[in-house]
């Protein structure tokens, strides 16, 4: 281990953010810039009878008005993952047009784009666009959408079913349930959420006719993927003629993975207009157009034996895809949810079936955690329910069901019932540590005392597993992914020994410029300030897959580490030549090659210089010290942990107050604990948001009622407490850094912990279940109901 790996190095990128000098997409102003405003459907389902653009065209400052007619020869937005029906039929994949010509299918669907000299003029002109709609019946609830006679989102998709899918052994699971001593079941909606990164999406399209070259600036988590989809699937323009830049990006949480229509529209229209076009979402547009998260309607059952051992799990979920398939939507309820149902438990029989359906709502896709929070929520709620019904302590029931520890080296990985093989884990260790931090026995005692005083204190557990750094490409390809899931790096040692590294990962808050620099500095023995990390520009960086699914360090960091190893390998050859020693007699440490047992040495900088001024150089060796690397992992990595929430519920108002929150996570080897803790904190907050506050509510007409921050509550500072965070370390056995992933653990764990805590608090009243979010109104009503009955 070097000097910097494991250190809480303060972020090197922060200076620009804390002095107002960052460059987000909307901060970019180009000569001749024009501004686009997208006219969106106010209806969930309507036929466009007629669009009259004449008044809008004539409005002051208007340069162009584009409608569905203008882009009818342009392809729609592609989906990047194909999940076929159980019977082998192909997934239903209706066209997702950039601008709709015939029928709008959700509130916010793109109808027209107005380009003007200013934002205000474009928006003013939108008022003058005359659109006649014939309003049609809509369906927003996925369970209702599959009923016979429900309004169809796409005429050629019967019962709105996009695909159905299953995993596990149905017969074995049914038998386990038939033979079980005790069965618990829950029915719930894992409610729809709006990601709400604080930076609204933004895109600038530029076309340089003299060079026949396009540039797209976009607030994206994965610029290369956007370029590929834009060029090869949507616009059919040559990939080498397009540069995509994702500069500073103000949070993503999944919502900025996907390829959106506005990116293609501004790129396409920039050529028509002959000037750069900027589009930036207003928050109200973000609410109806950024892909939403979750929205599962689930029935889940867990079977136990007399002693509380889990003997079976059965899950049936209807997953809402929204009106069209977003980029990775089909993978979320299936390969990121169904395959996670083993959890951290040794359950011998599991079966899960998924029905994915279209509704007249904003498309649903990955939102922080993506499928794994849904899996964790149902497992953790069922385990707690089982504990309560069997009269067991929730910590104890977990303990007896945990998969025993395995390091993936001496002991093999754990083969689940649902396809995945876990890399390494020690689940009980995180539980023990969390119980110790929270002072469990004392806390239960306090709870009893509180109950005597009529106070409702609750303790909730969540022992979760996450799958991140999804890979290898061959496996995900077999599962329907239309992309690889490797990562790239270039390590460019400059002649003066300074190092520039290029990564296909993309940071939008995760601090790669620091974490990746720590890896470089330690591995090469150079000072941190001699390292520059470059990302987010397809013209600078080799083809990369970007950042989502907590993959950056495990996949991108490993690609970097492998590149650094190549630098050392070549450097050793150069050093051996210059020191007139055999390679095997050299050792490399702290930025120097030393001939073992002597004081003969040469520095990293001297070797770098020799590589670029190769006057005295090994015969036949190419000059230079630069390596490009692509790394395709052997497996996912599987972080895990135990979270415990302590809440108090006011029975008079139904308000839930968070009292304490303990998180013990295991994300493998930690490069920068400051950054990992920060990721955990933010994740916990988002999961708590789902448990207590957030819900994207549609009315029966398909209007999104929670469509601004006035109706949709994301956690504020005074909703939360300071978190008590700790770690265990079980290295990942299959990547060179031993790292797992830390970006989503908090969100995956915390929702269930908080809901379990509230139900624990209210258990004396006989409340066994509550539907999220646990708003004061909902909790109060539940209390009233049990008291009335």
């Amino acid at each position, binding site marked *: 281990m070097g000097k910097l790996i494991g250190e809480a190095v303060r972020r090197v990128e922060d200076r620009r953010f804390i002095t*107002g000098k960052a460059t987000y997409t909307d901060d970019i102003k180009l000569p001749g810039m024009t501004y686009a405003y997208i006219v969106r459907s106010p209806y969930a389902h309507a036929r466009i009878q007629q669009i009259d653009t004449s008044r809008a065209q004539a409005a002051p400052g208007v340069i162009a008005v584009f409608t569905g007619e203008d882009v009818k020869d342009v392809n729609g937005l592609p989906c990047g993952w194909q999940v076929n029906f159980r019977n082998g039929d192909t997934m239903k994949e209706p066209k997702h047009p950039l601008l709709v010509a015939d029928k709008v299918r959700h509130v916010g669907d793109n109808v027209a784009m107005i380009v003007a000299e200013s934002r205000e003029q474009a928006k003013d002109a939108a008022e003058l666009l005359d659109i006649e709609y014939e309003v049609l019946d809509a369906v927003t609830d996925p369970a209702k959408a599959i009923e016979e006679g429900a309004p169809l989102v796409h005429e050629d998709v019967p019962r709105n079913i996009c695909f159905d899918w299953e995993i596990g052994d149905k017969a074995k699971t049914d038998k386990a349930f038939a033979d079980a001593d005790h069965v618990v079941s829950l029915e719930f909606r894992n409610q729809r959420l709006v990601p709400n990164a604080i930076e609204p999406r933004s895109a600038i399209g530029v076309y340089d006719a003299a060079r026949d070259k396009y540039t797209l600036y976009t607030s994206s988590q994965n610029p290369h993927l956007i370029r590929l989809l834009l060029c090869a699937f949507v616009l059919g323009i040559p990939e080498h003629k397009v540069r995509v830049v994702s500069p500073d990006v103000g949070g993503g949480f999944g919502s900025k993975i996907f390829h959106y229509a506005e990116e293609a529209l501004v790129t396409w229209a920039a050529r028509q207009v002959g000037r750069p076009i900027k589009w930036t979402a207003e928050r*109200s547009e973000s609410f109806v157009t950024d892909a939403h998260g979750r929205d599962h309607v689930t029935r889940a059952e867990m079977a136990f034996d007399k002693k509380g051992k889990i003997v079976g799990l059965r899950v049936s979920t209807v997953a809402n895809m929204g009106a069209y398939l977003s980029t990775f939507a089909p993978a979320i309820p299936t390969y990121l949810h169904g395959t996670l149902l083993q959890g951290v438990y040794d359950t011998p029989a599991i079966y899960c079936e998924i029905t994915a359906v279209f509704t007249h709502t904003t498309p649903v896709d990955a939102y922080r955690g993506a499928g794994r929070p849904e899996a964790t929520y149902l497992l953790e709620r069922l385990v707690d329910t089982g504990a309560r019904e069997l009269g067991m302590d929730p910590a104890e029931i977990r303990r007896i069901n945990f998969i025993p520890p395995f390091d993936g080296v001496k002991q093999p990985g754990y083969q689940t019932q649902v396809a995945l093989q876990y890399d390494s884990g020690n689940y009980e260790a995180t539980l023990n540590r969390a119980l110790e931090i929270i002072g469990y026995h004392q806390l239960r005692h306090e709870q009893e005392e509180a109950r005597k005083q009529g106070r409702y204190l609750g303790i909730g557990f969540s022992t979760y597993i996450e799958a991140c750094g999804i890979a290898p490409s061959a496996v995900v390809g077999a599962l329907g992914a239309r992309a690889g899931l490797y990562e790239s790096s270039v390590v460019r040692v400059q002649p003066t020994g300074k190092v520039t590294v290029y990564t296909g990962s993309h940071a939008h808050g995760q601090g790669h410029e620091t974490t990746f620099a720590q890896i470089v500095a330690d591995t090469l023995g150079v000072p941190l300030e001699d390292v520059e990390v470059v990302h987010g520009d397809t013209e600078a960086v080799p083809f990369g897959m970007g950042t989502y699914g907590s993959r950056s360090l495990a996949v991108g960091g490993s690609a970097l580490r492998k590149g650094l190893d190549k630098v050392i390998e070549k450097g050793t050859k150069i050093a051996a030549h210059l020191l007139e020693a055999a390679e095997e007699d050299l050792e490399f440490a702290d930025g120097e090659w030393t001939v073992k047992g002597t004081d003969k040495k040469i520095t990293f900088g001297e070797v770098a210089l020799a590589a670029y001024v190769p006057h005295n150089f090994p015969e036949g060796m190419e000059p230079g010290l630069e390596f490009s690397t692509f790394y395709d992992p052997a497996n996912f990595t599987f972080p895990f942990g135990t979270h415990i929430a302590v809440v108090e519920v006011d029975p008079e108002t139904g308000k839930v107050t968070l009292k304490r929150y303990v998180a013990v996570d295991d994300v493998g080897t930690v490069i920068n604990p400051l950054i990992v803790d920060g990721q955990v904190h933010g994740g916990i*907050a988002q999961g708590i948001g789902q448990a207590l506050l957030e819900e994207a509510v549609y009315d029966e007409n398909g209007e999104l009622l929670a469509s601004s921050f006035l109706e949709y509550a994301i956690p504020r500072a005074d909703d939360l407490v300071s978190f008590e965070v700790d770690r265990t370390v079980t290295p990942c056995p299959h990547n060179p850094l031993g790292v797992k992933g830390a970006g989503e653990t908090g969100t995956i764990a915390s929702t269930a912990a908080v809901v379990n805590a509230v139900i624990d608090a209210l258990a004396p009243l006989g409340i066994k279940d509550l539907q999220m979010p646990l708003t004061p109104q909902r909790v109060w009503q539940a209390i009233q109901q049990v008291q009335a009955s």
Partner: protein
Amino acid sequence: MEIPIKVTVNGEVYEHRVEPRMLLVTFLREVLGLTGTHVGCDTSSCGACTILMDGKAVKSCTLLAVQADGAELLTMEGLARNGELHPIQEGFWREHGLQCGFCTPGMIMAAYQLLEENASPDEKEIRRALEGNYCRCTGYHNIVKSVQYAAKKINR
């Protein structure tokens, strides 16, 4: 119709003619090119656009540029002096009080006003003072610590 305004921003005087409907944040970003102040919503909820106007934290998306006529404004760009970070900026760096950085300018400005009014706020007071500023990355944990760091440093 355009209206002349004279505004002092970060110590510099600017005179411009603006449309009456132009928002103050638009004036800062588009007219003056001070893009350190951000727009995160259209309902005055998120606080990303918070600046100081005559010493008070205001949401610059809720004011018209003409309302700032004659006022003295402080934005993110004006907080560091001679390249030296203000203790709040330093606190956000030391305590990892930011991730994506988008809410950070508004958050720092709101914290600035808090510390002007209350030199040693406790955690509860910090959380209450910042409830008009949304952060989706940090869970506020390290933002609280950043403000505490700054308070300590200022009081030293």
